[in-house]
């Protein structure tokens, strides 16, 4: 290597050092991501931060020490068993009709939004109703029954909320910006005995703007019917969903309770279509509490105005054809899965400044994957391909 070449490479190395040292994320990213991570912490870690306040509350109430200890244990148990990450909708599901909001029941209308982004599943390995979600290739055999008469369905769009929107929402909940306020469209608020965090949309896996409430001294009596307790907890913060929902109750670890208010969209002629996440699970607002203790945790979509527009959809036969097209050739270690269930659902598709709730056909079938009970899900966009962004 000549001296000139050697110098040239050393100069390049210096430039690379500088390039890597000066390439950094935008200023707000560090705090945004940290808050996102905090909000997704297992509940017991979230509880830990507030335990000092809880202990203080118990002391103030002059409860006998045994009762205070029991309350702490119950609350911690609620968190510890949440680590099991039980799936949405598992356990003894019940149904209840919620109030119908303008969100879910709005009549289709208005100008279409142009080509909309394509919905898709991203299935991490996780337990779903006793089966492991399988995201790999599979040979799919259609063995179900799907009949859809609708030829068009509404697509719903929302605009990413601003910091001012988050502030207004927090004010409605009864919280004011706290000293911990972060930059970049994320708000941290303090209310009387609770903390509210408002987070912006997440691109992957898609998530709409949502709130987390850490309620350490809830005044709601947390015994009795679980749905009634959860409803009262949400109502106390004006967080009861305004969209149609079904409730599902899980007992977590024998002591704590999770109540899911699973969101759906009312579609004229078709009834209620569930909103599913990127793994195909229904979701909505969630309340965790341990009966007999004062704490509760609530998380759910931030209330937003959503605009509908009607889009033509593919037929059931075309959806089944697309399902077949996504099937892998049989052979080798590729599992063969009988797809026995299909339904129309809504799913969130992140789009930047605007995101969408779009209709889709959700197919699923269970199978044994080397002895492991597994479920395969396939999501086929319902909007006609010509109106899906490439």
């Amino acid at each position, binding site marked *: 290597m000549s001296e000139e070449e050697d110098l040239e*490479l050393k100069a390049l190395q210096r*430039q690379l050092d500088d390039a*890597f040292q000066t*390439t*950094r994320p935008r200023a707000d990213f560090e705090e945004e991501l940290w808050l996102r991570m905090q909000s997704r912490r297992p509940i017991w870690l979230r509880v830990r931060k507030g335990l000092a306040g809880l202990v203080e509350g118990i002391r103030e109430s002059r409860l006998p020490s045994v009762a205070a200890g029991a309350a702490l244990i119950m609350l911690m148990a609620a968190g510890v068993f949440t680590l099991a990450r039980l799936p949405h909708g598992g356990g003894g599901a019940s149904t209840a009709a919620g109030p119908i909001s303008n969100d879910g029941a709005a009549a289709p209308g208005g100008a279409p939004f142009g080509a909309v982004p394509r919905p898709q599943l991203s299935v991490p390995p996780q337990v779903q109703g006793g089966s492991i979600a399988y995201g790999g290739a599979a040979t799919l055999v259609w063995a179900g029954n799907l009949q859809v008469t609708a030829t068009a369905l509404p697509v719903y769009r929302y605009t990413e909320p601003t910091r001012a929107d988050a502030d207004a929402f927090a004010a409605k909940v009864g919280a004011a910006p706290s000293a911990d306020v972060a930059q970049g469209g994320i708000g941290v608020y303090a209310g009387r005995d609770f903390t509210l965090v408002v987070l912006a949309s997440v691109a992957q896996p898609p998530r709409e703007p949502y709130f987390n409430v850490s309620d350490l001294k809830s005044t709601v009596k947390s015994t009795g019917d679980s749905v009634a307790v959860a409803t009262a907890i949400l109502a106390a913060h004006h967080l009861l969903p305004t969209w149609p929902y079904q409730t599902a109750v899980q007992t977590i670890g024998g002591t704590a309770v999770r109540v899911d208010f699973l969101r759906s969209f009312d579609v004229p002629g078709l009834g209620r279509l569930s909103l599913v996440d990127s793994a195909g699970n229904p979701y909505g607002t969630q309340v965790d509490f341990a009966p007999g203790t004062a704490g509760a945790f609530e998380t759910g979509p931030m209330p937003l105005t959503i605009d509908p527009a009607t889009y033509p959809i593919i037929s059931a036969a075309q959806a089944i054809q697309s399902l077949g097209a996504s099937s892998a050739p049989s052979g080798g270690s590729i599992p063969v899965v009988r797809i026995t269930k299909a339904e129309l659902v809504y799913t969130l598709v992140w789009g930047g400044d605007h995101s969408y709730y779009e209709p889709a056909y959700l197919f699923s079938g269970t199978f044994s994957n080397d002895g492991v009970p597994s479920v395969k899900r396939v999501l086929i966009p319902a909007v006609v391909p010509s109106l899906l962004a490439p």
Partner: protein
Amino acid sequence: MLADRPPFENLYRDYLGRIYAYVRAQVATAADAEDITAQVFMNAYQAYGRFETRNTSPAAWLFRIARNATTDHFRAHGRRERLRRTIERQPVAEADPGSMAEERLQYKALLVHVARLPERQRDSIALRHSGLSFEEVGVLMSCTEDAAKMLYHRGLKALRDSVHQEGE
């Protein structure tokens, strides 16, 4: 041992920038880099309870997670886009507002050239200039320290040639 581990927040604050730069040198947009970096730290956060310092350094552990996440990203989304960019030989597109600040960085163009290198050369350069030793680069890339050095120097020469070609 738990006592040997620094609080996760220390790791997060210390390494976020370096991990982001490592990822950013390989993917097309700042938005992709943010998404992957977020995934890296989410995964690391979940796995931190099992991390043991006696087996590996925090840096090597985090960069391993980052390397896997970047590979997953390419598997899922990248192949067609990378081929298109290679054919067109255009600088990567930046459409998101968050990348506007990054546009001002002096060395962005150089990282575009890094992103065009063959995968293992690109990886060796990105890991080395993210502050890892050649020994750590070798461990992460499943090769010897000497092989890591060789890959790096080949990558460096390829990078120089790429920069020269564009200047001609």
